[in-house]
């Protein structure tokens, strides 16, 4: 400093240096930089975004194919995916099968085949994605709001408030979650909105615990004491200092939460307890699948319904996988402690 004051021209030279003119690196820009180098997470984000985009444009795509999600065609039930024959047709390997399939379906290209009622699986997957992803994201938002509020209140105020909240959390968490959900969904026969509410209302406990623990940690730090010493109100300390410092945990937790919620929703819908037919969700499309396990073409002995069994499941797995990988990637990017551990970690014993 004193050098710069003594010599103005040196200071000018310093400020002209492009190296020093770069923007300051904040926590978030550093996290973004880590994320940009993380190929796996980028691929996962790309997959999820395209999945969401496809689901959102479901009505446009279904109009261009020329079939709605609930249009049945009993003549054409259990048609195999058109994709393979189409490629064979275009490459000239099999010039007859694809046109025959088109003739049977009335000119509609069922890219991923049709189900037991002749409904187009591809279109139903797109519309089902809307419901499945929508429910999972909305329920995750609800768990976040509830979990962060309850968790930070418990952690911040401690004492009797914390005791009461923890008693409630312990009580609710000693009922096995899946039992609770199966019971309420079996009895209440939910629609997408009530299902979201159930998933959210029974799903916030883990988040609340996590946030509470982190708030305990942050509350003891010096900057909270400093804020308190200048007379900052509780609400302001919580919103300005405590919650922003829990944000990395909240974000990572949210990604994993959404994945888990997709799994739970699909399991409930598979059992026939989730969203009721004919609305398609990825889980409910598998609802009849166990009846189709043994279904074979009487002439050739080929399984008729493998495409109905495999494709929705693969889609669920890939989506959940993408969300878990995003969660992992975000943790690496947002948690500087983990990053340091990675640098200084002493490797294995040989």
């Amino acid at each position: 400093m004193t050098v710069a004051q003594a010599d103005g021209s040196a200071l000018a030279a310093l400020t002209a240096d492009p190296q020093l003119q770069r923007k300051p690196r904040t926590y978030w820009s550093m996290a973004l930089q880590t994320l940009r180098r993380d190929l796996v997470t980028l691929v996962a984000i790309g997959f999820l975004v395209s999945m969401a985009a496809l689901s959102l444009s479901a009505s446009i795509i279904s109009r261009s194919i020329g079939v709605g999600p609930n249009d049945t065609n009993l003549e054409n039930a259990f048609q195999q995916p058109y994709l393979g024959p189409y490629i064979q047709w275009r490459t000239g390997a099999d010039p007859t099968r694809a046109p025959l399939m088109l003739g049977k379906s009335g000119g509609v290209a069922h890219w991923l085949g049709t189900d037991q009622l002749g409904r187009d699986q591809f279109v139903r997957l797109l519309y089902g994605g809307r419901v499945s992803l929508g429910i999972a994201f909305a329920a995750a938002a609800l768990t976040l709001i509830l979990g962060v509020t309850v968790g930070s209140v418990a952690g911040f105020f401690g004492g009797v408030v914390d005791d009461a909240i923890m008693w409630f959390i312990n009580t609710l968490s000693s009922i096995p979650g899946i039992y609770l959900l199966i019971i309420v969904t079996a009895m209440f026969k939910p629609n997408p909105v009530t299902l979201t509410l159930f998933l959210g209302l029974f799903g916030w406990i883990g988040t609340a615990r996590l946030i509470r623990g982190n708030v305990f940690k942050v509350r003891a730090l010096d900057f909270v004491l400093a804020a308190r010493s200048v007379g900052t109100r509780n609400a302001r300390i919580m919103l300005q200092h405590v919650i922003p410092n829990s944000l990395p945990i909240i974000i990572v937790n949210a990604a994993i939460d959404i994945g888990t919620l997709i799994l739970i929703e699909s399991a409930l819908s598979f059992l026939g307890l989730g969203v009721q037919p004919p609305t398609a969700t990825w889980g409910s499309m598998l609802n009849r699948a166990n009846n189709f396990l043994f279904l074979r073409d009487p002439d050739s002995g080929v399984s008729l319904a493998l495409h109905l069994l495999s494709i929705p499941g693969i889609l669920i797995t890939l989506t959940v996988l993408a969300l878990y990988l995003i969660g992992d990637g975000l943790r690496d990017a947002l948690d500087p402690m983990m990053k340091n551990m990675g640098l200084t970690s002493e490797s294995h014993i040989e």
Partner: protein
Amino acid sequence: MGRYVIRRLLQAIPTLLGVSVISFVLVYNSPGDPILIRTFDPNITQETREVLRRQLGLDQHWTLQYISWFAGITLRTGDVSEEFTRQDTSCTYVAFLNFTSCDNGGGILRGNLGTSIATNQAVWDRIVERMPATIELGVSALLVSLLIGLPLGILSAVRQGSLFDNLVRVLAVIGNALPSFWFGLMLIYIFGVVLGWLPTGSRRTVSLTNEFDLVDRVRHLILPTFVLALGGIALLSRVMRTETLEVIRTDYIRMAKAKGVAAHRIWFVHAFRNALIPLMTILGPAIFGVLSGAVIIETIFSWPGMGRLTFSAAVQRDYPTVLGAVMFFSLLTILGNLLSDILYGVVDPRVRL
């Protein structure tokens, strides 16, 4: 230690009380009529239904029903002691308050889970009938996940950064993301339908003699066990890998290396044993998690366990059975958490309570 256990057991009382209220409110305020399951016969008149409803107490406010279910004491306005006195119920009429109190000797407070509306059996008998199947499946799944998950985790820590390590980690993430019901269906399709190696469901082959056939039982057990164990394998291998890596960074391992202890001794005597300690915290809840988590797998594999019982009871609106199952599993969960905390103190003397 003894005082700690007693304190924890006492803490379980308000928790169980809360569980009973929450589950009762949810179940009894749901739409649907449990009487329907008893009265499928169209010849039954509306009057009979009302009588049945009154006998079961379903015409009362849910708070009174809760007291009846919880304490075994039914309260009714007016003098109805004549109507409700039976061989197992004693009623007394309190004239100045104008209500009748009937003690039917039951109530979960006295360890009686009530009678199933659907089958008229005692709920406890139904649970006892179904538990062996669930325990059989749960224990075998837990053993499989320990036997596969732990070695995988340790080996991938030993070979950190190798192809094997990366493969295990990738498989663990995929194992977590697989919907268990779909994975089960695919396994049934591959091994049961296409290859025909294993049965597609249920606990044993139906036979006239009803003899116990071990090979047949094991064959039926393989697929559901593996599906149920998958999550455990993924979890255990990940936790075990992290813990082992953490332990080998400690000073005592460095010390052992420095004084020239053989690598296998470092692994098995020092690293492995200490890495096992944190596992205790997840093992207790895992045991009971496995017992209660099998609902979906039991449904796919037609496994006659607790999960299917609860599922069908919920669909039939058999309130006492549903509530009995919830109370039972909540008790198991609380005991599981307590057990794992105690075990933690036993294996790690630093956390003596």
